[in-house]
Structures are given as C-alpha cells and as structure tokens.
C-alpha cells in the first residue's frame, strides 16, 4: 500500500479533541491524487468496504494458521512437524498481543522529532483513544467510504503475524523453542515495526520518498527473506546424515493444502490492501491470481525441462513465489504485468534454490530466503518497471515513462535489506549468548517434537 493518510481523530467518550485534523503530506508526484481538504466530505464507515475488510483480515490470518503451518509442516521430516505448527501458532498469539499493546502504535502511529520518519510512538498503545466507530485514518482509493479504525488495526495485525512466521522456513528443524520465541518477539518489535513504519505509515520516510509497496513486498517478504538468510547462515546447517543435504518432505499433501490456503488467503492480503471493495480491489485480486497461476506453471515447466518431471512441491512453490512477487505490485500493474512478473519469478527462485543455495552452502531448510527474499526483491523491482497509471493514475513505472520509480524502489529494497540483515544478526547474537538458540545434536536427531514439546505428531497407540 501507498496509503493515503487522513488523520481523523475519533471521538471517544471523554476526549476533548473533537475536530478532525488533516495532517497528510507526501511528495508532489503522489500528492496529486489527494483530494483538496476543503472538498473532502466527512468520511464514514461503509458497510460494503467493512464487509470485505473483515473477511480479508480473516483470510490473512488463515495464511499463517493453518496455511503456512501446513506448507512448512509438510516439508519437514515427521519428527519436526509439531514444532513448526507450534511456532506458527504461538507467533499468531504473541504477535497479536504485541500488536495491540504497542506494535500498531509503533508502526502506524506518529511520533515527534527526528525519529518520526522511522518509528511511531505510543499514542495508540492498547488502542487507547480509538473508539469502535472511528473511521480508519488510512485509506487508498476510497477517501470517504472507509472502514473502522480498529478493523485496520486488525488487518495490519495479521501482516505483523505472518512476517516473522515466514522466517521459520530458514531455521526449521534445528532451533530451540525458547530461543526462537524470544528472537521472534524481539524481531517483530525492532525489525518489523520500524520497516512497516517507513513504508506504510503516514510519516514513513520511504512512503514520502514515493516507494511503492502495495501489500508488503519490502515490509513482509524482503524483510522476512533477508532475516531468513541471516538466520540460516548464523545458525549453521542441520546435522544431516553424512553426505546428505536434502531432506524429503514427510507429507506432500499437507504442502499442497498449505499452498492452496496461502493462495486463497493471499486474496485478502493483496486485494484487501486497497482497504475497500472496489475496482482497485478487483484489479489487485485479478493480478494476484494470474501472477500465481503464471508462476506455478512456470515452475512446473522448468521442472519438466530440467529434471524431466513436473513436481507437486515445485508447482506449489512456484505459486507461492508468484504470490510473493505480485504482492508489492498488486495495486499498480495490469494483467500483462502480472503474467510477466509471475513467469519470471519462478525462473529466479528456481535458480536460487536449486543452484545458488547449494553453491553457497547455507542451509535455508525450506527456502524462506529463496522464495520470499528473492521473490520479494523481484516484485519490488518489477513494481518499478510495470506500474501503470491505468490502475492508479498517480503511479507509473519505467515502462510507463517514469524511470525514477525504479531508483526509488531500489532505495527501498537496499534499505530494507541492510536494516533487516543487520538487525537480525544483532538479535540473533543477543539471544544466542543469553538463552541459547541452536538445538543440541540430541534434540535434532530425536526431533524437535519430542524434545521441545513432549508430543508425537502421529501416534497409533491405543
């Protein structure tokens, strides 16, 4: 989202400040799309938009549990599936609480002084001062017909949940649960919230710079992907039987179900990022579906040509890669852009996970970096290339005659990569030195399910 921000301070009982205050600012190229203050009719809660956004929010939750949980859970060995499910589940619980406690305020609220472009304050901590009928200060295409502010909070909550969950793919099968949990919470606070603030909040420096990220290419995918790479490298490889570097997924049907639920949920992720049920949402929906389809097909064909057989894990991975790549572009490109983005992302990711990863020798167990990092970077670049004013008239990419946009996108990518990479490394070191984070050999060999949770996934006992 490049979110338009109309800072409407609600009217909670007992609060004296009752006048809506307009505090929107953006660079010239973008400002054109903002209606003049004087002419703006009073925004209200639209039942139609609210209906869609409640559902979109639920869809995004479904992406983490059970979507991603099954996608990742099916890929690991059977002795580790519960650990993956537990990681996804507890992230959903903990980050949701962190989000209403202060995460939302840090990410989408304002602060004053030099830090304002980088991190929000605590004004909205515990949703203080937001009453249930306040309209969302954030909107995209529908300035008047808005959704409740608390619904926007919850929609964004689901993004804050899934982002750290994506990283699981990198350290799966070899992390202590305690270390994982602390790392994840710290990461959400110190890495996710700031980057969300940069890109999506009204004050964010990348938003002001004009970086385009409709639904989370940088904030979610590049961010998680880079963190994944750093974690995979710092944690070291899994202790696999001598000479082995690949493990066989223990339940591919789960992988497929997970991929399908991700695909389904992503409609909420992308088409919901317009915060309304209108033509823009329909367009984001369409390009999301088509990019996923193109990328799925593309991966299947690569498999077929290179390894002689199209594979199920391959096509599922391709679909996810396509969804990743279209994420930042979903509100800016048309169908032809989506097809190109989708067809190419599988080429990049395929090459990454089958050739480069092996060459470089890091153990990104389930390819969180290979798919989300690479796919996200390609998506962010592609947004700069293919954005067309036919979708949102204010935004154009290189091929629509606005080469500057590509530069801005690169700044967004590089700053996300650097901040996420460095931040993750520091947090990793802190957790490693204090609580410990790498599983012992005994834990790894016995499996994390029994050693971390005293549970067995599939049991035949009476």
């Amino acid at each position, binding site marked *: 989202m490049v979110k338009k921000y109309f800072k409407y301070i609600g009217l909670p009982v007992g609060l004296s400040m009752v006048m809506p205050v307009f505090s929107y600012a953006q660079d010239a190229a973008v400002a054109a799309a903002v209606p003049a203050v004087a002419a703006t009719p009073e925004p209200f809660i639209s039942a139609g938009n609210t209906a869609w956004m409640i559902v979109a929010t639920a869809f995004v939750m479904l992406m983490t549990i059970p979507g991603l949980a099954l996608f990742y859970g099916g890929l690991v060995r059977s002795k580790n599936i519960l650990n993956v499910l537990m990681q996804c589940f507890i992230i959903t619980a903990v980050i949701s609480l962190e989000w209403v406690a202060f995460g939302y305020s840090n990410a989408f609220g304002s602060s004053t002084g030099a830090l304002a472009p980088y991190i929000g304050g605590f004004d909205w901590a515990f949703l203080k001062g937001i009453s249930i009928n306040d309209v969302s200060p954030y909107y995209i295409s529908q300035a008047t017909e808005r959704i409740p502010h608390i619904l926007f909070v919850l929609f964004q909550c689901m993004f804050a949940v899934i982002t750290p969950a994506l990283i699981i793919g990198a350290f799966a099968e070899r992390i202590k649960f305690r270390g994982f949990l602390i790392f994840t919470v710290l990461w959400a606070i110190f890495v996710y919230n700031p980057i969300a603030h940069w890109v999506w909040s009204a004050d964010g420096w990348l938003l002001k710079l004009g970086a385009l990220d409709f639904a989370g290419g940088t904030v979610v995918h590049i961010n998680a992907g880079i963190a994944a790479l750093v974690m995979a490298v710092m944690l070291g490889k899994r202790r696999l039987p001598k000479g082995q570097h*690949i493990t066989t997924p223990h339940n591919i049907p789960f992988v497929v179900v997970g991929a399908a639920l991700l695909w389904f949920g992503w409609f909420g992720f992308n088409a919901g990022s317009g915060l309304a049920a209108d033509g823009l949402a329909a367009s984001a929906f369409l390009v999301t579906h088509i990019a996923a389809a193109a990328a799925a097909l593309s991966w299947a064909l690569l*498999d077929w040509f290179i390894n*002689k057989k199209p594979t199920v894990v391959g096509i599922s991975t391709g679909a996810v890669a396509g969804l990743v790549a279209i994420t930042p572009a979903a509100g800016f490109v048309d169908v032809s852009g989506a097809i190109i983005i989708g067809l190419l992302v599988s080429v990049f990711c395929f090459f990454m996970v089958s050739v480069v990863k092996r060459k470089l020798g890091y153990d990104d167990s389930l390819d969180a970096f290979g798919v989300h990092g690479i796919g996200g970077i390609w998506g962010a670049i592609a947004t700069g290339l293919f954005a067309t004013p036919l979708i949102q008239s204010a935004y154009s990419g290189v091929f629509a005659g606005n080469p500057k946009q590509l530069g801005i996108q690169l700044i967004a990518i590089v700053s996300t990569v650097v901040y996420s990479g460095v931040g993750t490394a520091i947090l990793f070191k802190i957790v490693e030195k204090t609580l410990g984070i790498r599983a012992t050999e005994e834990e790894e060999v016995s499996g994390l399910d029994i050693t971390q949770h005293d549970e067995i996934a599939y049991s035949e006992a009476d």
Partner: protein
Amino acid sequence: MKKIEAIVRKTKFESVREALHEADIDFLSWWEVKGQGTAKQGLIFRGVAYDVTTIDRVFISFVVRDVNEEKSINAILKSAFTGESGDGRIFVTQIAQSIRIRTGDHGDESLYDKE
C-alpha cells in the same frame, strides 16, 4: 516347517501374492519395510534431482510345511523377477514349532485347512 521371508518390490507384491495363490499358498503375512541394496530411487525436490538409497519394499513372511518350500520359492522367483537391480531376496529359516490359535493345532497340522 520352514519360514520363508521374501523382500520384494512394492510393485511386484500383487503378482507374488497371485503366484503364491496359484501354488496353493494362501496364508501369509506381510508389511512394508525400507530396504538398502544396490538399487537407487530418483526423486526431485525444488529443482534438484537426487537419489535415495532407501527404498520402500514389501516384506512377505509365511510358514509352510517342508513339502511346500520349493514350490513357494519358485512361485516367488518367477513372479518377483524383473532383472533390474532391486528385485530382492528370499530367506528360509527352520521353524521349531507352529500353533494355530483358533484350533490349538500344532506343527504341520496348523499350516493347512483340514476341511
């Protein structure tokens, strides 16, 4: 009495079963095992084709009277054969005692239907 154990390809199990049936061997037990031998199985994972040496096999185990040993073995040999690496093995062991739980029959008597 002999226990005959055969480790065969999963894909050959049904034809072994049929061949044994034709040889009048109708009492058997079997289960899936993993096997390691000369054969390899090719798999693909995310763009990488790799070989695994662990291959699913069917382990067939049945006890016959000594008189039936040879025809049982021959039935298996014919029906499990492909000529490709991975066809498996047959092992024969001497059995000390056999009892049919339902009837309490011991020895050879426990190994065929008297009716």
